[in-house]
């Protein structure tokens, strides 16, 4: 369900796996939320037309966050061919064209304009009620995105427009604007309002976090940091750490009553406009009443490492909501499942899992010779896009099986390897720490006990040095590799 990047990637990957499926979408065409947002037109995720790796190769995906993944040349690296060179952040229309091109060239069949209205259990499967009738399936996969505007329960908030209802920027000319929130979308709007607004206040209980400070994707991305600089230089943008107590309409606009969360007492703002940049929630329909568990204020579905609903077995999620499977989240750093460059790989993994578990489709994995293992793993931690985009989350997994020999088990969730019993083997990942170091991590499973080996970083991020080779070889010794 869904024709955004999550639904399209999964459909393609299911088709490649030989799994029969149908795709429905309430939208009129491919593109998902990119048909409407970000409000200020350009994405946060980059695509570098010119990169250290050859365009169209697997390794190039590390530099192209927006193309979907195809096995055929014509389906690879579509996004850079659609960009006009004015920015390495694609415009919204360029992203939409990227997705539409992939869907068209891959021959994906989507029933557009078909809205899901209800869900029932049907023996071992499900019945999905839609505006075009009922679909009966063994497994439903929901790739509906974080598509519904969400606002917290603050008195008066119902009169406050959401980010999704932001007007054209010129209509804020000379206005005082209070933006509820201090996350990326708040800063996106504030950045866009800088040439127009008289004053901009961003207020929420939590202090601002900047990605360049957290050294991760957590926090406001560098692209939108300008309002922060304006604030610290006293230029007129205010960042206030405060609980929003109440919003009321006044003759001139709005009154926002707050209490500072740093103990500084109450603050009241008289402004012309208020906008709630308080996030989006997935349109879960009746899934929670059927048992699907969710986490947090915005009801992100709680998922297993293979993206199955916790509480609603045999129902799966794809796309941005796969962030509900947070993985190890080492040092508090999330994976990239909330964005295309992360969840496109999750879709491949999910397709493989569904094919294997529900349809008995389980192609033989490639075998490796013993002397191939070390250089292969070093190349993977140095160049594999899956490991670089989904740090501490996805891993290259190799199994040492008495019957089958040394098996390349592919790219899989690291959590699955670390937490599951199974044959002896090794999983390698790329990880980062709060100091900003990026380094390879090696997890060796021997007799169902997992040991972690963190390899050193490298100033040029080359993890195929003699030292890395030596430390990896030492880590692999218990496996006889």
């Amino acid at each position, binding site marked *: 369900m869904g024709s955004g990047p999550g639904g399209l990637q999964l459909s393609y990957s299911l088709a490649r796996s030989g799994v029969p499926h149908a795709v429905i979408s309430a939208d009129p065409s491919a593109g998902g939320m990119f048909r409407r947002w970000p409000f200020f037109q350009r994405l946060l995720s980059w695509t570098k037309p010119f990169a250290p790796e050859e365009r169209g190769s697997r390794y190039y995906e590390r530099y192209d966050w927006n193309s979907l993944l195809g096995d055929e040349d014509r389906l690879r690296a579509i996004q850079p061919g659609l960009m006009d060179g004015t920015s390495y952040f694609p415009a919204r229309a360029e992203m939409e064209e990227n997705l539409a091109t992939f869907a068209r060239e891959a021959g994906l069949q989507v029933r557009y304009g078909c809205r899901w209205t209800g869900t029932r259990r049907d023996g071992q499967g499900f019945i999905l009620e839609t505006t075009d009738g009922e679909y009966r399936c063994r497994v439903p996969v929901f790739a509906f995105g974080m598509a519904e505007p969400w606002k917290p329960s603050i008195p008066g908030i119902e009169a406050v427009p959401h980010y999704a209802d932001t007007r054209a920027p010129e209509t804020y000319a000379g206005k005082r604007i209070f933006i509820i929130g201090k996350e990326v979308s708040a800063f996106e709007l504030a950045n866009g309002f800088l040439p127009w607004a008289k004053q901009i206040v961003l207020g929420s209980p939590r202090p601002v976090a900047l990605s360049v400070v957290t050294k991760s994707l957590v926090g406001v991305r560098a692209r939108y940091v300008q309002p922060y600089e304006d604030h610290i230089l006293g230029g007129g943008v205010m960042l206030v750490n405060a609980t929003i107590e109440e919003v009321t309409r006044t003759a001139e606009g709005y009154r926002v009553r707050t209490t500072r969360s740093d103990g500084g007492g109450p603050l009241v703002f008289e402004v012309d406009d208020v906008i709630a940049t308080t996030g989006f929630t997935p349109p879960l329909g009746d899934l929670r009443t059927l048992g699907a*568990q969710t986490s*947090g204020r915005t009801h992100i579905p*709680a998922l*297993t490492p293979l993206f199955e609903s916790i509480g609603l077995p045999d129902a799966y999620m794809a796309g941005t909501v796969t962030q509900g499977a947070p993985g190890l989240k*080492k040092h508090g*750093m999330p994976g990239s499942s909330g964005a295309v460059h992360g969840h496109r790989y999750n879709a491949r993994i999910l397709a493989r899992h569904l094919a294997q578990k529900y349809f008995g489709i389980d192609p033989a994995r490639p075998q490796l010779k013993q002397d191939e293992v070390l250089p292969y793993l070093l190349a993977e931690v140095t160049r594999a896009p899956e490991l670089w985009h989904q740090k501490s989350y996805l891993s290259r997994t190799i199994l040492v099986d008495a019957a089958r020999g040394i098996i390349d088990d592919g790219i899989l969730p690291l959590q699955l390897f670390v937490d599951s019993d199974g044959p002896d083997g090794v999983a390698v990942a790329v990880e980062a720490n709060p100091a900003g170091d990026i380094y390879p991590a090696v997890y060796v499973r021997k007799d169902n006990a997992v040991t*972690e080996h963190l390899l050193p970083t490298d100033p040029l991020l080359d993890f195929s040095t003699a030292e890395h080779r030596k430390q990896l070889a030492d880590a692999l010794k218990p496996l006889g590799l």
Partner: protein
Amino acid sequence: MASTPADLIDTLSGISLFADVGAAELNSIAHYVDERRFADGERIIRQGITGSAFSLILEGEASIRLDGKDYGTLGRGDFFGEVSVLLGVPPVADIVAARNLRCAIIAGPALEAFMLAHPTVMFRMLKAEARKLQRATSWRT
């Protein structure tokens, strides 16, 4: 049912760790923590694996597991992971979701700032640590 923000604040207000915290501060804390549900059998922190977080049980139960053997059960209001975070060492045991587990989580790198910002919570944590130490050394007396 999953929580609304008000639900999370209500839940936090019933946990002894926050007994000395006023409404505004509790609201702030509710925005600071991440909330997460775990499938039964899922590990929250892992023996010997670095980079883990501080977790506080909001509902459900978790098991303390060392080398595959269970050594006890944790329930609502119990917390874990702080020793590993504060000392910068890997956890010495697994904590495994046993039943309908829902936790409030503070990432390791954020714990120090959280404790310094909320000294009454830190004091309650210290008392809990003292009780653990007392239990661990009770064989001496």
